[in-house]
């Protein structure tokens, strides 16, 4: 049985107050358990698309539905609770320099109301998973960019989110660290987490077998490598789709086409 999409973009347009349109009439669905690369040059709208998903900005037209919550009807005070179900990794890591690494990673749990000792215990487990166990009492400013990004991944997934948004997590690290960080996301994907991985590095996306959503000229193009590998399985109406396959993506109102 097909699972309900986690995110639905329904004829979404976005324009900032003083700027031209970022997107126009965008239709997208992200089903559970998939992995997508979101690529595009700087300023193409990758971050805006992610912001639409975690409702930091609202569409100027159309509506975005995230985990069954509609952008048009969600009350302001419900948005934080929705965000608690989404993991986010920011390009600049966004760590708090006055807190130790373990305290930074434990923050989402403490926000959810878990007691301090339990939150710190879970955070130490998570830091061990990303290979930073020996740095738990260090402050972020003494860590390298790659280490900070791994800590940011640990913080993003500590709440066991249903899907994970990563905004250029490899933007400020070298190739070796980029692959290491990407490996963490792949591991999470294998455990069933939906991942949207934004990057301007198309070669990184090309070297992995996951579909790529390319933002170019206010349009989104799908480059589905798995569809090429398994021709014919990309279908919007296929009732037998598995939720771990990227074929669940539906782009455009026509299904499998790009809508503008």
């Amino acid at each position, binding site marked *: 049985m097909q699972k309900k999409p986690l995110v639905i973009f329904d004829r979404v347009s976005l324009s900032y107050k003083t700027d031209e349109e970022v997107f126009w009439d965008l239709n997208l669905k992200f089903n559970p358990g998939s992995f997508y690369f979101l690529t595009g040059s700087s300023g193409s709208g990758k971050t805006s698309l992610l912001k639409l998903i975690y409702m930091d900005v609202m569409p100027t037209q159309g509506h975005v539905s995230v985990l069954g919550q509609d952008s048009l009807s969600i009350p302001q005070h419900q948005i*934080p609770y929705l965000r608690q179900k989404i993991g986010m990794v920011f390009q600049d890591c966004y760590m*708090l320099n006055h807190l130790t690494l373990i305290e930074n990673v434990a923050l989402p749990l403490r926000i959810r109301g878990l007691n301090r000792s339990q939150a710190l215990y879970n955070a130490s487990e998570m830091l061990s998973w990303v290979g930073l166990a020996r740095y738990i009492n260090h402050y972020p400013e003494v860590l390298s960019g790659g280490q900070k990004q791994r800590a940011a991944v640990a913080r993003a997934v500590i709440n066991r989110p249903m899907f994970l948004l990563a905004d250029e997590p490899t933007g400020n690290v070298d190739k070796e660290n980029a692959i290491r960080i990407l490996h963490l996301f792949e591991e999470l994907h294998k455990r069933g987490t939906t991942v949207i991985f934004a990057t301007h590095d198309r070669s990184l996306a090309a070297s992995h077998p996951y579909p790529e959503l390319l933002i170019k000229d206010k349009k989104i193009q799908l480059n589905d490598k798995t569809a090429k590998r398994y021709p014919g399985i990309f279908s919007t109406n296929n009732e037998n789709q598995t939720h771990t396959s990227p074929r669940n993506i539906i782009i455009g109102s026509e299904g499998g086409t790009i809508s503008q």
Partner: protein
Amino acid sequence: MKQRRFDIPFGSDMWISTVLGLMLFITSLSLLVSIGINRYIQDWNTSTQATFTLELPHGSGNQLPDVMQVLKQRSEIEMIEILDKTYIQKLMFQIGVAASDAPILIDFIVSKDHLSQFDADKLLSDVRKVVPKTVIINPVLTSPEALSLAKMVEIVSFGFGLIMMITMCAIIAFLMYSEIQTHERTIELFNLLGAPNYFISKIFQGYASSILLKSFLLSLALNICLYYSTYALYIGESIYITQRLSWITWGYIVFGIPLLMVTIIQFIVPITVLSCLKKKYNNSVHA
């Protein structure tokens, strides 16, 4: 005192805690003056309104037992005291009357329950049958002028205390506002991680509590110093006033200051923080 570490890196609170501590101390002093004056007037009137004095002329000592008999027959009178002869002679000397002409003074206290029915003129006429030329001195209550002056001082000092309290609330509110502006990025991260506004508000409440606790301890220390210094300097009757006022101070410290602190922490801080956050994040969600 070491500053507590919060999830938001607030600035040092030493300076603001000291200022608020001094303000709390001044507030306690002004309220102390206000309440103290009020209580002092009340105490004065209560203690004197039922106290009468009979003045028997010099040389009427032989009739004293008969006068006492007349007084004892009155059920309204609950206490009779013949003032010490030496004390009266001293008083007379001070007002320029020869000690040998000193009268006999008898203080008596009428029961408060029967004060309204007590007829001083009837008593005086009975005593005069024994000792003619006897005079009765009515209680000396606070004069209306002194009473209105005291009321004025009371109102002014209470108003001053109130202004100090409002100023303290305003300082805390402004501090919270400026901290929100300073740590905008940190607060934004909390917001992105899914922290509801009340969670952020609670961090600010913790910060305000820490500041107010330090201020309270400082003001308490100053109050104790004031109490002991006043106690050390007391002369004669002032010990009575000092003791009475000190209890008022303690009462104020135990109930007044904590009440003020709770009001600031539970109402002023959340209202300020939540209104700032609402304004900030209402703007951000619309492109």
